[in-house]
């Protein structure tokens, strides 16, 4: 057993991600080193094309780094097989996308059930947990709706419920409010705060400095490098 209490949740050690585009080599991540403690709420900011999404995808085990070492909850992920990575994504990571990425033919409840299906949870248990999750994000009455019948904010809530369905170690959100208007974006942020208060570790990418200020810590990225990593003073206001 790995003593997860002693280890930080995420440890990035000189992580690199390069894309070989024929003539030029793009360094999307150029030696990124940082760590995230359990229960932290981190905001990642930086201009477009700076490597934020690339970073999130590596953290979420969707993408494999070209170099460096990555430990998730004390466990090295470099040498994991495809199936093991799938299991990590399934049980350890909750991913929230800018464009929601709900499955359009499934209802809200069924969307939330998808990770539970791959985790082999029985049908009845799945239904129970999905309903509970939707309740937690404030969508108890929309369970039977399909994504097309929901507003943008509601869709993102379903996506968050889905990300939380297996109680992941880390919740990753890549511009979760990017496709929403300001007011709805604030609602979603409130939801993240609630989750954070309940103990979730959250990494959030955003373009909005106001939203970033609400986190515990802000990491700024430029051209694949961390240029700034500071604690956030204003967070008390939202605690």
């Amino acid at each position, binding site marked *: 057993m790995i003593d997860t209490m002693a280890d930080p949740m995420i440890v990035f050690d000189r992580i690199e991600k390069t894309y070989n585009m024929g003539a030029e080599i793009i360094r999307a991540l150029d030696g990124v080193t940082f760590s995230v403690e359990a229960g932290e709420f981190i905001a990642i900011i930086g201009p477009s094309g700076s490597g934020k999404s690339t970073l999130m995808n590596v953290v979420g085990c*969707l993408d494999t780094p070209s170099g460096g070492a990555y430990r998730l909850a004390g466990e090295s992920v470099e040498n994991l097989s495809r199936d093991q990575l*799938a*299991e990590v*994504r399934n049980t350890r990571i909750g991913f929230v996308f800018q464009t929601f*990425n709900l*499955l359009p033919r499934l209802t809200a409840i069924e969307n939330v059930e998808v990770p539970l299906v791959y985790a*082999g949870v029985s049908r009845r248990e799945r239904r129970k947990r999905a309903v509970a999750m939707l309740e937690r994000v404030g969508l108890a009455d929309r369970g039977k709706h399909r994504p097309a019948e929901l507003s943008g904010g509601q869709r993102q809530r379903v996506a968050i419920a889905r990300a939380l369905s297996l109680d992941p170690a880390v919740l990753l959100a890549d511009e979760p409010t990017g496709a929403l208007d300001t007011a709805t974006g604030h609602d979603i942020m409130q939801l993240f705060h609630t989750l954070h208060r309940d103990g979730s570790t959250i990494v959030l990418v955003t373009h909005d400095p106001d939203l970033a200020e609400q986190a515990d810590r802000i990491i700024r990225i430029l051209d694949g490098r961390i240029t700034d990593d500071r604690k956030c003073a204003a967070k008390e206001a939202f605690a």
Partner: protein
Amino acid sequence: MTRQALLENTRMSIRSILSVPVRSILTGLGVMIGVGAVITLVALGNGAQKQVEAGLEALGANLLIVYSGEPRGTALVRTNTSNIRPTLTETDIEMIRALPPDLVRLVAPASTANAQLKYENRNIAATVIGTTVEYPDVRNFYPIYGEFFTEVDVESRRAVVVLGAQTYRDLFVAGQDPIGERVRINGIAFRVVGVMEEKGSTAQDSSVLIPISTFQRSVSGSSNYAMVNIQAASSDVMRELQAILERELLRLHRMPSIEAADFYIANQLDLLSTVQGVAGTFTMLLASIAAISLVVGGIGIMNIMLVSVTERTREIGVRMALGARGRDIMAQFLTEAVILSVGGGVIGVALGLGASWAAVEFLRTAAVATASSVGTAFGFSVVIGLFFGGYPAWRASRLDPIEALRYE
């Protein structure tokens, strides 16, 4: 894969199949037609075989025929042996009759000749068969009207005749009672005692039957026989009986080998297996042609599944991001392909059975749909789903999660 996952996959697949109903029907259509064609064509092939077999059995059960002369093809039955010099003697017949009853049940020697028949002002050519009273039983050929001639008729060389069904129609007015009428055969008057049933074979229907004794005296003038019809005690002893007949007849005829003999023996079993062989080949040929359409149907499924995998790349990416392993994705698409294929197969089975039934009902052809052809065709549709769905499913399972997610 657990039962739980299989169930979930099936539900998911049925859903995505139903979400594009027209496309799904068109996709399954190839297999549908293929399976339908296999079942129908095999049914027709089987039907043809059964018909020929039934025809052969109608000749008489466990039939062996010894003919004078040299072998001619595979024909078991040569009703007309008129231009063959009869070589089978009374001694031969006695030898055969003396064989034990667990080998031989009935013996009916016969000779034939072409003759002119005349009744009133009607004049026709027909085959006259001289034979014994065992003939109806041996050849499974019975009078439908009146009676066959009797033992007494044979012993007393009476001039009595039983008409073939066609001969009766040619000589008499429809509905006219021929019994007791006098028909002239080569100028000699014969009294009609019966009319044979319709056999569907021209040779038998257009013949007339008279006692062998009368035949030998009045028609041929020879005391030999052109052929001997023998009913074996059972089909199990037919080969043994044939061997014994061959040996004994060679001895009596003082001949060295069957190849050089002046007689030959036709065996119903041999003919049956020849016919079955030919019909089997024919059925296989039909089945292979139909199987090609099954394969084409499979390619159709593969094509659509490849399109579907491409279209749903993003969905695959999302599922992988949520924890689907390669084999989960593989199972999902495989299940979908198999359901399409099996769905097509089920409808194809219904179509095939319907078509076979229609062939019997409306076209009056013989069609026998067998459980094995239904089972095979259905099994094939499962295999085709797995085989042709396999490659697209494998491609889907090998997608890179992040690239699949980025796919527009």
